[in-house]
Structures are given as C-alpha cells and as structure tokens.
C-alpha cells in the first residue's frame, strides 16, 4: 500500500509551510498533494513557494499533485481553479467545479471532499479521466471494499483517510472570523494562530470539534492503524495522512513501518501517543457505530 500526504488543511506561515515539504522530501512517502484546500484568501501568503516545493518533492522521487479548493464560489476562485492545470502537475479535484476546467482526456485524481459513495459515481468519474479516488472519510469499511473492487475493474486506485483530523464540513461562513466578531470578507486571518485548528468544546468541556476558518474538523485524529490489514485485503491502494503540527515526518515514518510490517497497529498507536500524550484517536467511520468512536486497545481482526 502507498502512503499519500494530503494537502495541509491549516493556515501556516510560509516558511513553516515550505519546511513541511522540505521534510517530506526526505521521508518515505509516495505521493504528496499540496496547495490550498480550505480558503482562497490564504493562498497569496505562500503561493510563490509552491513551485519550489513541487520541484523539491519531484527531485526526491515523489508523485506531486495539486489540490483544488473544497468550495468554489467567487469569480476569483473560479479563475484560480481554472488555472490549476497550467502548473503542469496532476490535479486532485476536491470540488466537482474543477472538472469543468479540465481539458478532455486529462487524467486527474479525486479528493476526499468529493462525494463518491457508490460504484456508479466511481464509474462516471473514471469515464471522465479519474485514475485515483480518495474516498470520503465517513464511508464504512464495507463500502470501501465494494468501491476498491469496482476501482480495480476500472483501473482507479482507491485511497482511504488514514490519519489526521477529519474534515467534517465546509461552509460559506468563516467561523474563526465569526468568533472574533468579524465577517469572512474582513477576517484579518483569524485562523493563522491555530496550527491544527481551534479546539471546539461542548458545554461539559469535552473536546469535540476543531474550527479551521470555513472548515470544521473532528477533534480526534482519525487513525486507521488497526484497519490497515483489512484495507489491504480489500484492495485499497493507498493510505492518506493529513499534515499536522509537531513531528509529522515521524508520523509518516510510523505508518510506513506499519505498512512494511515492522510495527503492528498497537505499536503505532503507542508511538503516536508518545509524540503527543493528549492525542485523541478515532476510527469509528471505518469500523465503529459513529465517526468519533475509537476501537481502543482491543486487538483488531484487521491488525497486522
């Protein structure tokens, strides 16, 4: 199974952003999706560093892919999305709008924010040129298996959300700006101080969600460490890891060791908690009753 690093969902200063890809170039991952997924207003702050990051990753032998925005509404955003293909690398569509701009016979990949729930949608995207689909994080293992089989028949690689805060919703409204009594148009980049999003707690002070501008994420970090065996048997081609602050390259290495059979799921979980003792994990979308559930310490049937 391959390892893909998804686009950084958060707003980081440009040097920190560039350092992430510098580190990833030295890490045993296969594929990197980069660019702005969440908010077009962030892009000017690091846009000029993107060509350099692409070149660095390519020189290190990584497949490099550019993401589209998750929600395209403004004229400026439509133009930006239309221009993605001109960068000369594969495009990952995270809003179907992007399809409107891809020339005929363009091969592209599909990100987790496009609703691919069934074989017919997979087939339709394949007919348009999709060669890889990262499935929506809310899909259960059973659906993943059916779609991986359908993908194999059509030559479409199937990827699954493997690690990181789960993108749960996208909005026209910026919650970070709202929290600071501002509107989206006058946000003053309220999201830049929260490198992993801002923790949203319930009235019992229970961590629940994370606010990230127009995006809402889970508080817990999804972790498919206990399911990689089952995912591999289902024919899943790649596991997606989502960038976070701290030693993300080390997180990537742990998952590589898991895929190579050098560590088992439990050892990976232990190592993840050693990196961040407060880390809350979930794998409920794949195998639980609800997304927030965590299969915990129990040995899993899918463990390797």
């Amino acid at each position, binding site marked *: 199974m391959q390892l893909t690093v998804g686009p950084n969902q958060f707003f980081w200063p440009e040097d920190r952003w560039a350092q992430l890809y510098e580190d990833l170039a030295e890490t045993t991952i296969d594929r990197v999706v980069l660019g702005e997924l969440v908010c077009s207003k962030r892009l000017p702050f690091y846009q000029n560093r993107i060509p350099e990051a692409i070149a660095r990753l390519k020189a290190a032998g990584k497949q490099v892919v550019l993401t589209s925005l*998750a*929600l*395209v*509404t403004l004229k400026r*955003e*439509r133009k930006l999305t239309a221009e993605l293909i001109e960068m000369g690398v594969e495009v990952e569509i995270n*809003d*179907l*709008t992007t*399809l*409107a*701009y891809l020339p005929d016979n363009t091969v592209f990949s599909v990100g987790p924010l496009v*609703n691919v*729930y*069934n*074989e*017919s*949608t*997979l087939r*339709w995207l394949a007919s348009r040129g999709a060669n890889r689909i990262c499935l*929506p*994080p*809310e*899909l259960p293992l*059973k*659906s993943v298996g*059916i*779609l991986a089989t359908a993908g194999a028949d059509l030559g479409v690689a199937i990827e699954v959300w493997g690690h990181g805060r*789960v993108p*749960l*919703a*996208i*909005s*026209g*409204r*910026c*919650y970070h*700006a*709202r*929290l600071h009594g501002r*509107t989206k*148009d006058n946000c003053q980049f309220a999201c830049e101080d929260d490198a992993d999003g*801002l923790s*949203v*707690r*319930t*009235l*019992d002070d*229970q961590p*629940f*969600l994370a*606010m990230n501008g127009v995006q*809402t994420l*889970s508080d817990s970090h999804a972790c498919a460490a206990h399911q990689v065996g089952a995912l591999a048997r289902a024919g899943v081609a790649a596991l997606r890891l989502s960038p976070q602050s701290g030693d993300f390259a080390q997180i990537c290495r742990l998952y590589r060791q898991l895929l190579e059979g050098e560590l088992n799921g439990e050892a990976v979980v232990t190592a993840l908690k050693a990196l961040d003792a407060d880390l809350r994990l979930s794998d409920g*979308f794949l195998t*639980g*009753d*609800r*997304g*927030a559930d965590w299969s915990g310490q129990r040995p899993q049937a899918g463990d390797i």
Partner: protein
Amino acid sequence: MEIVCPAGTPAALRAAVKAGAHTVYCGFADETNARNFPGLNFERAEMREGVAFAHAHGAKVLVAINTFPRAGDEALWHQAVADAEASEADAVILADPGLLDYAKHSHPELRLHLSVQAAAANADVINLYAQSFGVKRVVLPRVLSVQEIAAINAEIEVETEVFVFGGLCVMAEGRCSLSSYATGQSPNMNGACSPASHVEYHDVRGVLDARLGGYTIHRVGKDEPAPYPTLCKGCFSAGGKSGHLFEDPVSLNAEHLIPQLQKAGVTALKIEGRQRSRSYVAQVVRNFRAAVDALELGRPMPEGMLAQLSEGQATTAGAYKKTWR
C-alpha cells in the same frame, strides 16, 4: 414565480395544493431521501395518488431522491427513480452524480432537478451538471448572496430554485458529516441529521441539558424552552468564548427578498420543512402565494406575514446578505 412546498405526508400534500402551491416536493418512505424521519414520507401508492391529486388541481409534484446511494445497494435508489417516473411525477430531485448518470440513461424522458445536496455553488459546475446529465433546474446551496445568484443566472441556461423559508443549513449541503461523526446517522447516507434517536435531555438540579450522541450542546433553565440539539446550532466554547459558534438557533426567512430574487432571475422559491404539519405548510404556502401574486400584479408585498410561524425563533436572511459570512 413558482412556490415549491414541502409535503411529508399525503395530507400535507393536499393541504399545500389547496393553499395554492404551484409545486409540491416529497419523498419515498425510506433512506432514498434526505428527510428520512419516522412516520414521514410516501408509500408508492400514496405517491401515485398524491401526484394524481396535484395534477387534478393544476399543481406539480417533484420527488426528492437526494441521498447518496450506498455502495452495493444502488438498486434501492434506482427503483425509487423508476417508481417516481411511474407515478407520473413531474421531476426527480437528485444529488449523486452516479444516480444522475443512471437516470439520464435509463429514464431519458424524466425531468431531472439538481438537489441542494449537490451544493452546486457556481455557474461552471451548474453548467457541468446541465451538460453531463441534462439537469433542467438547480436548487442553489444556501451559501450564496442575492448578487451572486444574479451573476450565476446570467451565466447558465437552466432554472434556479432557492430556499426562502424554514430550516437553515450553515454548512454546504451534502458536504457535512458532523451528524455522522457524533451519531453515526448521516444526511448523505441515511437521510438524517442530528436524529431524535440520539437526543437525550437531562435535568441536573433545575438545569436542563440537551445532548446529542452524548455531547452536551444546549443548557437552559428548567422553565425555559429547550431547543432541539441540532449540531450546527448547538452551544460550544472555543478560544475562551462560548455560545452558538456556528449559527444561532435561527431559521431562514427571506420573504422581504422576493422582489430581489425575482430580479436575480430565480424561477422558484422553495420552502423547507417536509417534517412540518399540514397546517404549518398550508399557512406558509398561503402567505408566500399572496406575496408572489402581489408581485406579479405590481402591488406592495404583504409584510411580516410569517413571523409567528417561526416558533418564536429569531429569523435570518442567511447568506443572501453578504455579512452573514
């Protein structure tokens, strides 16, 4: 302008038609539609009778099949499309590209509308849906301002329908798994958001907590009205502040924007609420019908007509005003 009204039951359908609805939308009693609530929606025979009743009174019926078919179980959704056509419904409202593709090829005579659950938020993607599947009308997501709606209409050939009254999603529709994360019930997969089966009220020493999936998201004094704990309208804390961080417990009322929406080129005005009672539906329909009739005749719009129907809740014009963002 066309008034498009919800009907969760055959009785609500008849009430809406009698109250002057130009069009009624409804769904089958299963997970194929995004209001899959217990006791709601139409059996197959009821749909046929409902369509016949509406047609006899000069009204149209749209069938919402707007969840995302489950892998391995698509036949259930395909059957719903076939049954909608057999019931002589005027159109189906779909969200899933795979289901749209199926309907286009297997039911070429059936008129297709794009559900709000597809969240088609710009002219380019709307044109893509029109060209790929022959969609004739798009229900616009609730993230757009009136000016943006006007700009979209200038660039597309298909009709647009916009929500003007009722519940308000603050997240892009069809792209939200908050409910799925907290309860396992998903709007996209199960047609349910913040389901009643996962709601608990706890009276803790005179304070009433409302929990969804075990998460406490409302807290009121025992004698205050307890709002239903819908996730995006819940109470949370973040960054040292607490309150309704995503959206206040408001509902949408854009009645005063009807003339502007008409100028923006909107074809149809949609009322949310298939879960509402027939008397509620009838009253909302009568008021909106009076408003559009006044508009057609160049008379002044009746004002503030629906305030009492918003259940004492505050109302908002939502994203139609740019400052909402």
